[in-house]
């Protein structure tokens, strides 16, 4: 019992993973499975966005663009050249990594703070016009449709498991990165760049590294996105998904590992269930975000940690009185 309580977070995570693995066996509707698929993909996007913003302190506003580049690359290759998504998704990741490192990583070496935010925002914002101008390849404003799934003739439940495994692997990689020396260096640069430099951390190298990691993984997520959903269009780059993705990070807790995942859960499911509220949907979500920022600036993770210490205190008190 004591072990379960002291490791309550680990136990909780294990329970959630088991639940997610067993969930399709409960026979949920195709619609619910679809929501979970969205949750898996957006979690990865938000988590790797958080790596840039929360862990390294680079204010990127362009990660939706990374998703789009990866998605479009993989979608075009599969649709126009008939390649298997197993090949096109990694290619999409590599292309995204290269483009982003080249167009954002290198310029960002000389920029800081708000200027990086502007650069990345412009990068993501320029993509819709590029996409509409290249109709022959990208499908223009209509986007790409009937993008082949991972395997021909597969069902929703297969897509669910493929995305679930991708989600687990992506989170495992992120966890490893954060807890490696590189991850420590990232946080050190965020907290004090000068101090980090005097410890032998090369800021240029680390910044390129984080742009490469974040964009590669987000590009891969883009591949999973298009092959799961079957289509992508410039509306993916519109203001709503962009703000929702940022809200996932803020709501969950910026700079924490589990925050963006929790935030993605709340936003993906909340956004769908609030469709019942019609046009009030975004207002309600906005109110929720305002509330969290006002009362829990550390996001849901702050709430979780407070609850955690209370449980511990309660448990210890019981032991003393016994």
């Amino acid at each position, binding site marked *: 019992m004591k072990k379960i309580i002291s490791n309550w977070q680990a136990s909780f995570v294990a329970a959630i993973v088991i639940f997610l693995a067993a969930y399709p066996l409960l026979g949920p509707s195709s619609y619910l499975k679809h929501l979970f698929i969205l949750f898996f993909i957006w979690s990865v996007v938000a988590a790797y966005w958080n790596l840039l913003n929360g862990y390294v302190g680079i204010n990127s506003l362009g990660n939706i663009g990374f998703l789009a580049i990866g998605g479009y690359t993989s979608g075009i290759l599969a649709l126009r050249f008939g390649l298997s998504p197993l090949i096109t998704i990694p290619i999409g990741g590599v292309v995204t990594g290269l483009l982003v490192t080249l167009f954002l990583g290198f310029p960002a070496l000389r920029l800081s703070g708000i200027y990086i935010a502007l650069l990345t925002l412009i990068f993501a914002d320029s993509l819709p016009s590029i996409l509409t101008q290249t109709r022959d390849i990208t499908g223009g404003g209509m986007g790409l449709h009937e993008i082949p799934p991972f395997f021909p003739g597969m069902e929703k439940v297969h897509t669910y498991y493929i995305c679930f495994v991708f989600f687990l692997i992506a989170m495992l990689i992120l966890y490893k990165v954060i807890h490696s*020396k590189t991850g*420590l260096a990232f*946080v050190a640069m965020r907290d004090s760049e*000068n101090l980090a430099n*005097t410890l032998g*951390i090369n800021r240029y190298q680390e910044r390129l590294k984080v742009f490469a990691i974040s964009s590669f993984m987000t590009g891969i997520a883009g591949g999973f996105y298009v092959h799961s959903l079957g289509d992508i269009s410039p509306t993916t780059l519109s203001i709503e998904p962009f703000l929702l993705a940022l809200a996932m990070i803020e709501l969950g807790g910026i700079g924490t590992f589990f925050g963006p995942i929790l935030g993605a859960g709340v936003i993906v499911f909340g956004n769908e269930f609030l469709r019942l509220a019609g046009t009030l949907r975004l207002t309600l979500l906005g109110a929720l975000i305002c509330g969290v920022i006002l009362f829990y600036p550390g996001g849901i993770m702050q709430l979780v940690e407070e609850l955690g210490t209370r449980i511990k205190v309660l448990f210890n008190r019981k032991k003393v009185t016994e």
Partner: protein
Amino acid sequence: MLKVDSINGYYADLHVIKNLSLRIDQGEVVALFGPNGHGKSTLLKILCGLQHPKSGTILFNGENITAYPSHRIVELGIAYIPEARDLFGDMTVMENLNLGAYNKRARHSIPQNLEFVFEIFPRLFERKNQLCSTLSGGESRMVAVARGLMSEPSLLMVDEPSIGLSPSLRSSVFEALAKINREKGITLLIVEQEIRDALSMANRIYMIKKGEILFEKPSAEVDINEIEKAYF
């Protein structure tokens, strides 16, 4: 080992280091005294590459490091320990120490260096998994010095190691520094306001005033009144 030749340095627009030259020999302990705001910390920042001098040269083991960025200077073996509590508060003691060994040279000898660090500061071993933001002032200084040692330096530059510490903690920090010099042969450059403590362990001192070296002497020949006079 370190040879600084007539450097000029600025703090924003202020000309705080004026034509300053000094040298530090292998294995020495050199203390740098001087009133606040007369360029001591700026000098250390220039030596570790956080700032660059407008003119002059800095040679380290014969290599011209004047224009090197700080991460390269660390790799060559100069460690800089900044003033006060410059730790990463959200990381544990162990993580802070690991960051100290970030450069390629020191990565290979982490276990040996850790052993030495824990031998000098046994208290850090007890607290290795504690968050740095929860440490006391003395423990924070220990982590800062230990983190510097993890980079396996041949020259350790310490900015006011005793600032804000009680007299007993102060002497234990100085004892630790003396041990580092004695057992590992690491050259030390110490900036200090606690003149007596620093004087007792230094081989040589530099007195800096208004960005210039006022005098340089072996510590045995120093009259403490002379230093105190120079402060005013």
